[in-house]
């Protein structure tokens, strides 16, 4: 009996390992497609993990600072987000491959920003100072399950 129990557990363990090793692409929900402008560098204004979880707080804080106190630093401004993250083909953060829309659609979180704000990058957006221009950013694979490799300086 003891041997049988051990065998069952061993089998279960082997199954669970096999399941975990299965690639994430079998998910039924299409993963968000995230593309960035390759000439803008691949380092966001804060660490990627931080931005994924807390980007809304940064934008919300900057919103009130800009609106009420006239502080127009670009680091956490929505304008800066859009200029960097707009899809190079469409120039927009919305649409099927839009940086904001695809992820928010996946997470089923409604965004109100673009009821008023434009979703398009400025035509001649200057690259903010202090952000090194990088020749090639690797095509970023979808965020979920495969954390992106970031090059730390």
């Amino acid at each position, binding site marked *: 009996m003891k041997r049988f129990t051990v065998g069952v557990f061993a089998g279960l363990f082997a199954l669970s390992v096999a399941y975990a090793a299965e690639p994430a692409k079998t998910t039924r929900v299409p993963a968000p497609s995230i593309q960035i402008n390759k000439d803008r560098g691949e380092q966001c204004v804060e660490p990627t993990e931080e931005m994924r979880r807390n980007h809304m707080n940064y934008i919300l804080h900057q919103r009130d600072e800009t609106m009420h106190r006239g502080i127009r630093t670009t680091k956490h401004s929505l304008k800066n987000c859009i200029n960097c993250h707009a899809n190079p083909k469409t120039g927009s953060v919305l649409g099927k491959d839009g940086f904001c829309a695809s992820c928010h659609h996946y997470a089923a979180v409604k965004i109100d920003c673009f009821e008023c704000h*434009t979703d398009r990058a400025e035509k001649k957006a200057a690259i903010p100072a202090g952000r090194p221009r990088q020749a090639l950013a690797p095509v970023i694979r979808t965020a979920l399950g495969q954390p992106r490799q970031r090059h730390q300086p």
Partner: protein
Amino acid sequence: MTINRRGFLGISGAAIAVSAVAPGLRLIELAEGRAPDQAVTPKQRWGLLIDAAKCADGCTACIDACHEENGVTGNNRPATDPQWIRKVTVEDNTTGFRQSFPVMCQHCEHPPCVDVCPTGASFKRADGIVLVDKHTCIGCRYCMMACPYKARSFIHEVTTGQKTHAPRGKGTVESCTLCVHKVDRGDNTTACAVACKKEGHEAILFGDLNDPGSEIRKRLKQKPSTQLRPDLKLNTGVRYQGV
């Protein structure tokens, strides 16, 4: 108390040094624009001076420039399309004298729109610019009713193609921002003033009402000016001459 020669020279030298440095500091403070990370202060009070005598009848250059600058678009429905500037024509019933001049948000020191706003969306910035925070505007339009200048508009329909610096969307109220994005950038002018100058009228002048050395203060000192509806004691930031 006696002061010897050396003491006197020392004191007077210090006095000269102080008087030489103090005006210098003030000049630097006035001349330099605000850095992007600095908040607005009540040191400035931005305003406009409109010379109605120079405003040409039938000219809409300021309105066109304003709407172009801020991406204000309508749907060819004059009753509901937003207007940030209106050309108002007034006639003296006794003499029949007619004149027209632009009327926009008057950027009052005591704005009635701010008093009535239930959410705090309508607010006055420290430098005197009256704005709508569309993030908190619920579209109740109390401010539109409170404004004696009919300066505010409601956006009735879905907007597209907004300018990056001028977000605007359905269900919120909007009005002249005194080109706040240009002010913050340090342009020291507005789209309407630039357009009017380009047309050769120079009827609109933008400036700092708190700065005694500014062009707007000099012009206000030279000739009489008035506020629209001065009886309301709103102390408007937009002043008129030749009305």
